């Protein structure tokens, strides 16, 4: 029970931090925000690595493998496409 409360505390506080930080993102950057935060949600990769690496049963290993692929697409694709997009945002004098 104690562990659950700790996890819930972290969960709720992180949501508040998210609200505070993201409210300041201007509309211009909303698309990069989505693709960037999307890449962060690929953090499930951490769990996928454990499932694929433990190799308890064939089935969990296969599930883990597919999960690693999915999450890696999300992470690598997300950060790269965000980087590509952000490189396009320039001020007038930078041109």
């Amino acid at each position, binding site marked *: 029970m104690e562990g659950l409360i700790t*996890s819930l505390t972290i969960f*709720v506080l*992180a*949501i*508040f931090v*998210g609200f505070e*930080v*993201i409210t*300041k993102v201007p*509309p*211009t950057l*909303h*698309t*990069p*925000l*989505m693709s*960037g*935060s*999307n*890449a*962060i*949600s*690929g*953090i*499930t*990769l*951490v*769990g996928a*690595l*454990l*499932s*694929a*690496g433990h190799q*308890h*049963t064939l*089935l*969990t*290993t296969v*599930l*883990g493998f597919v*999960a*690693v*692929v*999915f*999450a*890696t*697409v999300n*992470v*690598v*694709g997300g*950060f790269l*496409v965000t980087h*590509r*997009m952000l*490189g*396009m*945002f*320039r001020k007038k004098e*930078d*041109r």
Partner: protein
Amino acid sequence: MSGALIDLSYLAASALFVFCLKGLSHPRTAVRGNLYGALGMLLAVTVTLLDRQIVSFEIIAAGLLVGSAIGAAFAVKVPMTAMPQMVALFNGFGGGASVLVAGASFLEAIALGELRSDRFLVAVGASGIIGSITFWGSLVAFGKLQGLISEQAMVFKGQHSINAAIGIVCAFLAGLLLVHPDDPANYVSVVGVASILGVFLVIPIGGADMPVVIALLNSYSGLAGAATGFVLDNNVLIIAGSLVGASGIILTRIMCRAMNRSLGNVLFGIGGTVGTGPAPGEEFYEGKVKSASPEEIAMLFDTARRAVIVPGYGMAVSQAQHAVRDLANLLESRGCEVEFAIHPVAGRMPGHMNVLLAEANIPYDKVKEMDEANSGFSQTDVALVIGANDVVNPLARTDPASPIAGMPILDVDKARTVVVIKRSLSPGFAGIPNPLFAADNTVMLFGDGKKAILELIAALKEF
């Protein structure tokens, strides 16, 4: 590596994620912010690989390789106009990964005969449900945006009751997980039913409401990750997941407010009133619409001192952003001040238009948000609307009975002259006529966005 060290590294990764999002609050710091995020991810992945419980790296290496190759290929190749479906697809992958990880952990726990606490089982159920909805909902959204399935809202009788019933079945099956914690089939059925729910929830949502759906699915993908964090008892998943969840919720709220509709209304409501009420007849516009040739419109621009360009989804469809940039540069070289005005829900995802203008090298300080833009229209000689409709419809201000009543719009009608580039007089997503097109100070330039702009540039060069 000791557990404490791993946890400390996860803490550092979480902090880097916060810096990442913080960096995104300004275009100048955004690139660095994104790199912080990538660094945080690299750190989290590296310390995870040092976990002593991992017995084999071949499978992991293969997965990482395949995933990186696919992700990188997508990221490098996708055109900016296709960004909404790209984000939708990536969202789906995140949700799918959550379903699989939660499932694998559940099976592992059964295989090892570990105690499966209620808390663990609830988290497994939540991951399965949220993850499946995210995965299938995102695939449907992708299909709609990519044009693989109809973008129209697909509405049928009793839709809400059916969805509610599926939702109840889903919750019931998740409850069974608690009663029979030894049966993997329960998890499979939870995932199966939630998948159907994911498809059904997004199918009835039409094109112009897509920004809300994408933002919401973004939020779900984060929450699915957080739920998986509860399954694995892993803080970095919980923190990263809730940050993304919060981000999606904020964007969803901004999009809803920009349409003056509640989230419930977008998801379950009128669906853009498609099919209700008579379509705007020819008689509404008859005899009132003035159409002009590119040469005549070039004459308007010839004397203009200040012009505001208002892009809509039509600009994305016709890939006109580069032509628009050329037009803006040409006008500026002739001494006309040029600005861009963007409505928050223009396009198919939050910030869609901004990215396209950035791609065309239009400096972001010339791109104005709605409030700032609206204060300038009365001093504007020409407002040029490209492929936008509902977001510039004055009925939102004047007709309380209109489906878009109260929706904040760009007040282009207050400019001295309005030029609207559009294929036809067909109504926008809201399915209502737009009196702007028939206004005294409006001229229409009918045709494809890109072609019309190019003709306009050619005509303007003659002066």
